[in-house]
Structure formats: structure tokens, C-alpha cells
């Protein structure tokens, strides 16, 4: 077992123990949903070099699909999540067919356009509940046995699902398939000349990413009990880019860290502000909680200007440098 694996094991142990050392399980699991979302996104951007500006469509689309299936068709949670992942994957396949042959910024724009259509569909379709959102999705019983309405049961079931999905991403990256993706990212013409049908590889990577994103969205609905328009809005696509970038593009651990930071800012900035105000005595910080988007914007700027490799990327680079010297 190498050091990286040890690190993941420790992280997993920490997450297993988290509810007993004061962490609030529902917040942690929500955070992990976003971490999975960001990891799936990173599979595409960090490891294949495709910038999708429409991932909210898979996240939110699957959240609605799974919610509807569990609420109105009475699907059990595991089937609901599977249905969500399939819905995400199917949407991803459609997007991919149209977009995959485009390069760089055109790719980003066409995914954005398609995601906007999904947004308008979600706004108008009767089953999504428009701006009220799809509410009151029951948590149900996993495999018909495990009652998930208990927060702790939900937490461990969710943790297991997310860990498995994350493992799938790690496997994908390290597989021969993942190596081809990396080759496409580094030099696509070269990969073509080596005889790879790059469009097919990219499409497959896109569908996998969309399906895992769908799983993350479906799981969020399962945990929180609703899906709303926020999940399909283009700002959600922007938010996942931020998570990946802050954490570290093309690193496996980066999206986890990035998601943790972004979700923490959304949920805890107000309390942080109050705390700074009480420590420094500057009254202004008390209103920090109303400036989430401002702070998010500053992070974007600082990130792009100062540490482009993201937090984990910088740490890994630092360790590599140390090793290089030693």
C-alpha cells in the first residue's frame, strides 16, 4: 500500500468516524455529493481536457428524474439512484453526440446551450413543479430493508455509494482507457495518428462523467428530499468548475477539497463572518454572510491569478519538488 492509498484510507476512516466527533452528518453527505459531482466533472476537464459548461443539466436532470421515480413510481432508493445515473448518462449521450466533435471553447458553448434547454424544460414541465421544485421525495428503505429516514443510516449508506463511485473514477483514470484519455488531452492529433478513434473515447468519457454526475444529483435528492431549479441553473455548472479549479485540476483528491471549500462558504460564511467580527471587533464582518457571491468571485480571481494548480495541485507539486531535491 503506497502513501496515497493510505491517505484515502485515512480519509475514509475519518468520514466513518465523523458523526461521532461532532460533524453534522447531513451537511457532510451533502458536501460529499458535491465532491462526487466535482470528481465526475474533473474526469472530463482534468483528465480528458474537455470543458463542459453544462454539467448542471446532468446533475439537476438526474435529481428530478430520480425524485420523480421515487416519489410517484414508488421506486426503492437503490433503483431510484440507478435511474438517476441512467438519466444522467442518457442526457450525457445526447449532449455528447452533438458536442463531442467540437473543440475547446465551442465545446463549452454548445454544452451551455444544451444545458439551457434542459433548464427551460425543467422550468416548464409539469412534473418538476416549476419554481416550487419537486418536493417531499421520501427517503424510503434501501433494498426494502434499511430504513434511510434515520440520518445516520442515510449517512453510511450514502458514504458507501459515494466511496464506490469515487473508486470507479480512480479505476477509470488508472485504466488503459484512462491513459488514452490522457493521451487525447495532451495531444489529440498524435492519439489519432496512433490509431485511436478519439471521438469515441471522448464520448464514452463524457457519458461516464454524466452518469456519475447523475448519481450525485440523485443522491442529493435522496438525502435532502427535493430537487429544484437551482440544480439545473447555469450557475451550478459554474460552481462545479470552481470546485474543481480550487481543489486542483487533474488531481484525484482536488475536487474533494474544492467541494468542501465551496459548500462550506455557501453554508457557513455567515458564521465565519460573525466569528471574525467578534475576534477583530470590526462590525462589517457581521454582514459577510450576505456576500457569498462576492467572496466566491474573489476566490475565482485569486485562484486563477495565484495558484492555478489548485490547493491539492500545489501541495502535490510542493511534495514533488521536495522529492526532486532530495
Amino acid at each position, binding site marked *: 500500500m503506497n502513501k496515497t492509498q493510505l491517505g484515502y484510507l485515512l480519509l475514509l476512516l475519518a468520514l466513518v468516524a465523523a458523526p461521532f466527533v461532532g460533524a453534522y452528518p447531513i451537511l457532510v453527505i451533502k458536501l460529499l455529493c458535491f465532491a462526487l459531482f466535482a470528481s465526475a466533472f474533473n474526469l472530463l476537464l482534468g483528465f480528458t481536457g474537455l470543458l463542459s459548461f453544462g454539467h448542471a443539466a446532468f446533475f439537476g436532470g438526474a435529481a428530478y428524474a430520480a425524485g420523480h421515480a421515487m416519489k410517484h413510481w414508488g421506486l426503492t432508493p437503490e433503483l431510484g439512484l440507478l435511474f438517476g445515473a441512467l438519466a444522467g448518462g442518457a442526457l450525457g449521450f445526447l449532449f455528447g453526440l452533438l458536442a463531442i466533435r467540437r473543440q475547446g471553447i465551442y465545446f463549452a458553448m454548445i454544452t451551455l446551450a444544451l444545458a439551457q434547454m434542459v433548464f427551460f424544460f425543467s422550468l416548464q414541465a409539469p412534473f418538476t413543479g416549476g*419554481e416550487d421544485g419537486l418536493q417531499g421525495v421520501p427517503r424510503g428503505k434501501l433494498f426494502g430493508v434499511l430504513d434511510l429516514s434515520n440520518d445516520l443510516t442515510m449517512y453510511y449508506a450514502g458514504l458507501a455509494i459515494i466511496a464506490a463511485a469515487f473508486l470507479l473514477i480512480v479505476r477509470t483514470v488508472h485504466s488503459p482507457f484512462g491513459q488514452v484519455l490522457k493521451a487525447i488531452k495532451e495531444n489529440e492529433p498524435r492519439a489519432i495518428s496512433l490509431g485511436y478513434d478519439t471521438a469515441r473515447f471522448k464520448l464514452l468519457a463524457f457519458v461516464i462523467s454524466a452518469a456519475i454526475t447523475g448519481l450525485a444529483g440523485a443522491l442529493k435528492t435522496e438525502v435532502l*428530499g427535493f430537487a429544484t431549479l437551482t440544480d439545473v441553473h447555469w450557475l451550478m455548472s459554474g460552481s462545479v468548475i470552481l470546485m474543481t479549479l480550487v481543489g486542483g485540476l487533474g488531481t484525484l483528491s482536488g475536487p474533494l477539497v474544492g467541494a468542501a471549500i465551496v459548500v462550506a462558504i455557501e453554508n457557513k460564511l455567515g458564521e465565519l463572518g460573525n466569528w471574525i467580527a467578534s475576534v477583530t471587533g470590526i462590525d462589517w464582518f457581521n454582514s459577510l454572510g450576505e456576500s457569498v457571491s462576492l467572496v466566491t468571485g474573489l476566490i475565482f480571481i485569486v485562484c486563477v491569478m495565484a495558484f492555478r494548480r489548485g490547493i491539492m495541485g500545489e501541495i502535490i507539486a510542493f511534495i514533488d519538488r521536495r522529492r526532486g531535491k532530495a
Partner: protein
Amino acid sequence: MKLTLKPLAIALGVAAIAVSAQAQEKVKIGFVTDMSSLYADVEGKLGAAAIQMAIDDFGGKALGQPIELLTADHQNKADIAASKAREWIDTAGVTMVFGGTNSSTALATAKVALEKKRVYINNGAASSALTNEQCSPYTVHYAYDTVALAKGTGGAVVDTGGKTWFFLTADYAFGHALEADTSRIVKEKGGTVVGAVRHPLNASDFSSFLLQAQNSKAQILGLANAGGDTINSIKAAKEFGIDKTMKTAALLIFLSDIHSLTLKNAEGLLHTTSWYWDLNDESRKWANRFYEKHKRMPTDIQAADYSATMAYLKAVQAAKTTDADKVMEQLRKTPVNDFYAKGTLRPDGRFVHDMYLAQVKTPAESKKAWDYLKIVKTIPGDQVFTTKAESKCALWK
């Protein structure tokens, strides 16, 4: 402080449980609303200020302990609102969740309160689903809802002679509900709906929709939209002179919207409101206190925030407990009678009180700052809200 206390409490283990059991009796209000996004001016931080004002007026203490107010900005995201409420209930011992503007956040938070058995009060959200299809024994919907807006404005406008209607409707659930409810009341009263045009959310230019409305030759232009869309429709209606041939009825508009539109653009506009600062001596007295502190006149939502907090605190004091079932029982049997409203809480969670049909003054009629509305008609509460026959709420059968 909270950050350092938390691990300590957990380390103490059993002692911590004893502490939290005691803390149950401490009144804690958690207020989560939109403080930075689309609806921040309707309620926002001044809503929190109104709640704090009620707590201070109550004496700052209930059941012998200081009352605490926690606030958070949900940025119009349901997942933030609901998880905040959940966390507050589970870790901070919040006894009442106060929800704010935006229907999706309100419905999601109401579900959490139901699951955890806490009192849930909402003023800012419009959706009547809160007390209808999705009603809960712990929800109090205090100020207004889409049904009241539709019945109030629709009914009263037909009564005053506006028989033919054309709707400009935001194309999503909220707009459709508002249009459908209003159409029904218009037809019941003997009016006709000659047409409607659905516009997408956040359409910045309304002129072409308005020309379609004008060509319909209807007397009344009904705006079944909200926020920026309503403001921009009214502005364009003025610019294209629609107001010369049609009367505009805005189904959902707040004092803060009229303030930012200015009277020049908004004059003559008909709408329904749950309260207005210049109603009577009592309302003026409270509003002036608010104004002195914040340099803005309160919206009806902010006034309702004060009134609802007061009602809750009185119920806790009378029931001598923060237990949600007992407090709700107390709230249901105690009529409210204050500067905001005189009314009672129904089994479906609807607080029933009179609403007002108001018309925006012309610049010439306005004598002082914030002198914006004249009350055309008082609409009795038992007529304006959902009736028992219409209700789909299982708790009210």
C-alpha cells in the same frame, strides 16, 4: 464562540445531553431568507431586524431565559435553506424556524420542520401549496398567498368595473397558478378573459408582449409575474402608453418594488397587499419606529415578521413550553389583534385576516416620502383565502 464550544460539549458526552435537554426550553428562532438575491428587498435583513424588534419589545426573555435569533442567507437555494434549518434544529436546538421569500425554499423547509416537529412560520413565500396540498400541522403561513392575491385583485377589480382581462403570465408554475386562480374568479364574477401571453422567466424586454395585450382591446392587463419581470413590464407599459387604454393590475408586487419603480411609472397600478404602513394610527406608529431605525418604510412582509414573532412568543409564554404541538394549539386558539392584522389561525396553517386592494397614487396625490398607496377596498379574510370547499388539505376536513 460556537466553534470552540462544540467539541467541548461533545467531549463531555453525557453531560452534554443533559445540557441540551435543558436548552430545549430556551426559545431560539432560526430565520432563513433571501438576503442577497432576487427578493432581498422584500424581506431580507430588514425582516431579521423586524423579528429582533419584536423580541426586544417582548422583553428579550421568554420562559425565564433570553430569546436567541439566528439568521442565514439561503441565496434562493432550497438545499441551503433546508439543510440550514435541519442543522439548526439538530445541533443548535432551534425551537421555531422562520422561513422567508421564495416558494421552493419554503416548501423544502416546511418538510424539515414537519419531520422534526418544530413550529414553522413563513411570510414571504407566495405558494398556496404550503397550506393546501402540502399542508402540515406545524406550518403557519402568515401574510399572504397566491390564492389571496388572485381572489383579492381579480374579484375587486371586476367589482369596480374591469370586466375584460388579458394576462401577461410568467411561464412557470407560479405564474400559471396565479393566472388560473385569477381567471376563475374573474369569470365567476361575470367578467371575461380575452387572452393571455406567456413570457419566459427574466425576459428583459416586454414591449412585444404588451403590444399583443393592447391589440386584445381588453380593459385590464393582469400581470401574473413577479420581481424584476413585473417591474420591467410596468415600465414598458408606461413607455408604450399602454396605461392610456388599459388599467394594469399587478397580481404580486411589494412596496419595495413600487419604491424602486417610482410613482411616475407605477401610478394607477392596482394590487392586493396584506398591510400598508399608512393604514391607521397603529400601523403608522409602528412603521415610524421602523423607519427611524432603517430609513425605509417596512413592506407588508416585514410588518408580518414582527407580528408573527410576537404571536409566537406570546403562545410560548402562555403554553409555558416550546413544545411544537402545544405551541401550535395555543396559536390556533388565540386570535391575533395588533397593528398588522386581526385574525385567526386555521387548522390548515393559514392565518386568516383581511387583505386590501390598493391603488398606487399619482405623483400629485403623494404628499410625503413613501406616500404611495390609497386603499380602494378592504377584502374580508373569510372571502379572500382558500375556502374549506376548495381546500385539499387533509388537516382541514
